[in-house]
């Protein structure tokens, strides 16, 4: 409103706990929900062979394809997944301020979910559809719990995700760019041919795909 002084946030992203900011009613509500046992920051990775949710044998994995975000998840649903060749083997249950997933594997495309599938003809091929948002304080946990359940055998990981064209940094304006377009990042261990150009500086990838 007119006359309201708004403190501009610093790009440095500081979180100085000395100056405890006043909580807005929304903040207070979110904080209370977080503190309630039901809405904790811990995520649960449940595999189909663990009825009680306890640690079982690690899954042997040679290829792991992860689709992060609704677009990538929809791509897999449309072109790759079907109930004949693939079976559900796991689910991630989590809560954060943006979304909540449950342990059900019967999901609608509009739901937030994170499911793991295994190729029936080659059970070392694993696929993950993660349409929910994994918050920054949960990303490391997701990684450790998912990869920790795997026995890696010459593991090759492929991550599929999307970003808005408006976020792409380039000399020309993004208005005239032909989109959608593909860019890739790869580790030096990946020796195969990449199907598209590499992501140029100064562009970066963040969140779960980066993690």
């Amino acid at each position, binding site marked *: 409103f007119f006359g309201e002084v708004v403190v501009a946030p610093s*790009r*440095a*992203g500081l979180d*100085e706990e000395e100056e405890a900011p006043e909580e807005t009613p929304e903040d207070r509500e979110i904080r209370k929900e977080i503190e309630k046992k039901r809405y904790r920051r811990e995520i649960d990775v449940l595999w189909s062979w663990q009825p009680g949710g306890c640690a079982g044998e690690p899954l042997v994995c040679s290829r792991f394809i992860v689709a992060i975000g609704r677009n990538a998840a929809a791509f897999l649903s449309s072109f790759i997944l079907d109930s004949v060749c693939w079976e559900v083997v796991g689910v991630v249950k989590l809560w954060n301020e943006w979304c909540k997933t449950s342990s059900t594997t019967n999901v609608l495309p509009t739901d937030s979910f994170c499911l793991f599938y295994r190729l029936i003809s080659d059970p070392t091929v694993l696929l993950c559809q993660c349409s929910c948002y994994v918050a*920054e*304080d949960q990303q490391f946990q997701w990684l450790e719990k998912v990869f920790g359940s795997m026995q890696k055998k010459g593991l090759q990981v492929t991550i599929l995700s999307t970003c808005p064209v408006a976020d*792409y940094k380039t000399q020309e304006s993004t208005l005239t760019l032909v989109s959608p377009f593909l860019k890739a990042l790869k580790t030096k261990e990946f020796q195969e041919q990449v199907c598209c150009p590499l992501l140029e500086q*100064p562009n970066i*990838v963040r969140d779960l795909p*980066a993690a």
Partner: protein
Amino acid sequence: MFIPCDRGGGSAAPDFKGFTLLMPAVSVGNVGQLAIDLVISTLDMTKVGYFYTDCLVPMVGNNPYATAEENSMELSINAEVYSLPSKKLVVLQIRSPFIKNKYRPFCETLLSWVKSSKYARVVLLSSSHAYQRDDEQLLGTPLRYLLTPDLEKAVGGRMKELNWKEMEKVAAYPGISNTDKVLHIPGGGITKLLFTESCSEGIQMAVLLKFCSEGDNIPDAFVLVNYLNEWLQLIKSEVSTSNNSTDPSSQWKIPSSWRLLFGNGLPPALF
């Protein structure tokens, strides 16, 4: 936390004993981080490892110091370590902010890595909100330094020779006289925590900081890195023949990742 790069040939983890560790605080204007970018880029430092940590927001991209297509394809993440053995220098670059409530664990792990690696000293580049300066601080140089007691003995004299200004302590309760003076570094991120912890743990640490505001902080980065250079002499500051002054700014190499810091080109249809 520290994972060395596999440089092939089965080399052991690098030995940092006796080296100087140079690192930024994620602070106002990201000045420390920009200054570190200039150091790594200019000295063409080699990456020797990274931090595997859950304390920083994840990010990944291609080599930010790429100069040609051949060296542009190396992945780069949020916390990486570079070294230049000829100058006994190791540089840590931090590229993303701390995850909520994770800055304390990070500082603890960092300082224990400093001790176990046996660094001779740590130099922390930082910044503080310019608008928080008092009347006296508004005049004169915007640059300040701090030394832990152990380092004060070793280099305190050099700071006096350089005519540097020590960061002033402020009253704990402004407006009330006779209160204790405390160190206050608003906008400095983890600077104060790292400094006070280093004091109590006997780590030799120097903090170099600049008062600044958010905006185009590239000039601030140059000022800070030249300030650092006055002491550590990382690059030679050539005397300019045209005006007979020392201006090393032109000798720092701007990394390719600084392109497009303020957005893309404009759509021609706009005009």
